């Protein structure tokens, strides 16, 4: 059964191996210039207030390196989807379409074994491919990622002149899925999802489409709804006084007067992932614009940095407002990576069991 699985998978395996070799050569060739720029910037010796050095380094990167950096993210997003659609979906659906399952199921091998050997071997190949790709990119982008980790994790911190996206830390949802071990979990899950869709729908094309839609939906939902809860975020509460608060007065034509938006000090945790930053009253309620901050349109037009606005700040300072910031510190990168990888692997294994059960139960003419 192992031989047959390998023989059927061989063309795809050759394509994947070829792609890995091309990527490896490309990265090995260009890694020196990235490493050189990093050393030249002096970032390796920097411990505090390094953002100027970061900017120097990022501006120093040549266009090919920038292109590769963007390509790395794109490729790491595409890899699991491709595994699901091109390796997973056809694995069993194509046998149903061609009727070859009737040949395979009449060999002296139970179809449970048939299913699990196919799932196991090609699934492992998916994991290995995604893992190797991620390993290579993580190594290649190491200097850029560590430069970004000096920046304060508001997500997008603009480094003057540099591409804004370069400021993304590893923990930022955009980067998280393209680094470390998580792609292995994604590949395993996408593959199992493809196989399951193929078993249930018995049509390769339909299974590919379903895999694509479901996997993308899950990749959007998990960073927003699940990942922030995998490890309880660090919560910092800062009492706001007239001194440390910032506020913005918005004209609000519906209400007839202005409303105020209060925020605390800027978040300053290098490499962290900011999950939420809210300002609330001492009882935890939303801030209601006090009288001192309610201006008419005319008043706002006439007021420069006038006494009225200062009055607003003063009143806000006495309201005992609090800023509550939730974030995952930079040190949580690997714990979160492993937990999420484990989660996806468990889901993939569950889907694998569904496949085995369906193939046993559902007999196809």
């Amino acid at each position, binding site marked *: 059964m192992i*031989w047959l699985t390998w023989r059927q998978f061989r063309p795809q395996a050759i394509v994947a191996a070829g792609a890995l070799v091309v990527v490896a050569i490309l990265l090995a060739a260009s890694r020196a210039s990235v490493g050189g720029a990093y050393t030249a910037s002096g970032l390796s010796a920097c411990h505090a207030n390094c953002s100027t050095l970061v900017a120097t380094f990022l501006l120093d990167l040549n266009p090919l390196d920038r292109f590769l950096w963007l390509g790395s993210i794109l490729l790491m997003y595409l890899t699991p989807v491709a595994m699901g659609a091109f390796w997973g979906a056809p694995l069993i659906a194509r046998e149903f379409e061609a*009727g070859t399952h009737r*040949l395979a199921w009449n060999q002296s091998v139970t179809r449970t074994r048939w299913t699990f050997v196919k799932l196991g071997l090609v699934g492992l190949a998916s994991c290995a491919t995604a893992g190797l790709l991620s390993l290579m990119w993580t190594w290649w982008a190491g200097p850029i990622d560590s430069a970004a980790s000096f920046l304060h994790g508001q997500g997008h911190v603009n480094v003057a002149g540099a591409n804004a996206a370069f400021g993304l830390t590893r923990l930022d949802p955009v980067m998280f899925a393209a680094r470390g071990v998580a792609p292995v979990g994604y590949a395993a899950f996408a593959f199992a999802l493809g196989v399951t869709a193929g078993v249930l729908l018995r049509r390769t094309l339909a299974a590919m489409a379903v895999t694509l839609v479901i996997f993308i939906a899950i990749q959007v939902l998990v960073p927003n709804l699940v990942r922030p809860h995998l490890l309880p975020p660090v919560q910092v509460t800062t009492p706001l006084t007239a001194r440390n608060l910032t506020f913005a007065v918005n004209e609000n034509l519906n209400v007839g007067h202005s409303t105020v938006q209060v925020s605390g000090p800027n978040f300053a945790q290098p490499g962290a992932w900011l999950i939420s930053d809210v300002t609330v009253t001492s009882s935890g309620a939303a801030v209601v614009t006090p009288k001192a901050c309610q201006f008419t349109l005319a008043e706002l037009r006439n007021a420069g940095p006038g006494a009225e606005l200062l009055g607003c700040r003063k009143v806000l300072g006495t309201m005992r407002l609090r800023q509550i910031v939730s974030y995952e510190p930079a040190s949580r990168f690997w714990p979160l990576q492993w937990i999420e990888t484990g989660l996806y692997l468990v889901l993939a294994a569950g889907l694998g069991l569904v496949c085995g059960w369906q193939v046993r139960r559902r007999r196809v*003419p």
Partner: protein
Amino acid sequence: MTNAAAAIEARGLGKRYGRRWALADCTLTIPAGHVAGLVGPNGAGKTTLISLATGMLAPTAGTVEVLGGSPTGGPDQLARVGYVAQDTPTYAGLTVADHLRLGARLNPRWDDGLARRRVEQLGLDPRLKASRLSGGQRAQLALTLALAKRPELLILDEPIASLDPAARREFLQVLMNATAEQEFSVVMSSHQVADLERVCDYLIVLVASRVRIDGEVDDLLATHHLLTGPRRDAASLPSSQQVITESHTGRQSTFLVRCGEPIADPAWAVDPVSLEDLVLAYMGHATTGSPGFRMMEVKR
């Protein structure tokens, strides 16, 4: 080999697709040690019955046993039954040699010598991909896989439809030799009654999920007679003579009857029945093309 067990034993077997029953309440026993032909009109449920017996389908109702075991039993049970599906599936991307290797890897009783000899005899290039083979060659490859598996029972669904006459003869010869040497039993469905006549020694006529008649071919031929004589009513025949079909002209009546005893009535001209006529009669078709022949409702 468990000689006691039937090749296929179905009890109240049924398969439903939505509201339509492809096979309903089918009870039959096909004994082992025969080349058994399964015939019937399109839609009678032949392929469904075979799919159920090979475990490709799960029954909606009833049970089916093959060689005394469940069709989806373990590897041992799978090794005992060879099956070639109607469209003789092969892997398009795999070569002939790959297919033989597949068979060798997945079957403990694989007879590699037999497989190689057959491929050579058939003139199949081992390096050729299955997608490059003709329909008949693909069928031969699928049959080779099933034969080299050394099964106790070979189940074939319309196996000879895609073979040319020479290949058909060769293949039927293989089946006859194998069963003559008691190597394995065969159950095959076919439309080609003429071919079945040459090779089958057991016959099952399936019409609308029901077994119309089954038995050893020699017995069937010995107990069915074509009676021709002066016009008379079917009701006037003795009760031992079961009328299968009847036709009448102005002065003459023709009956195809089933009767265990010799026909004594001197008024009749008694003729033997060909297997094809017998099958057609049970399938509810006219047995002769003579003008004025009128099909009556088939009687049990």
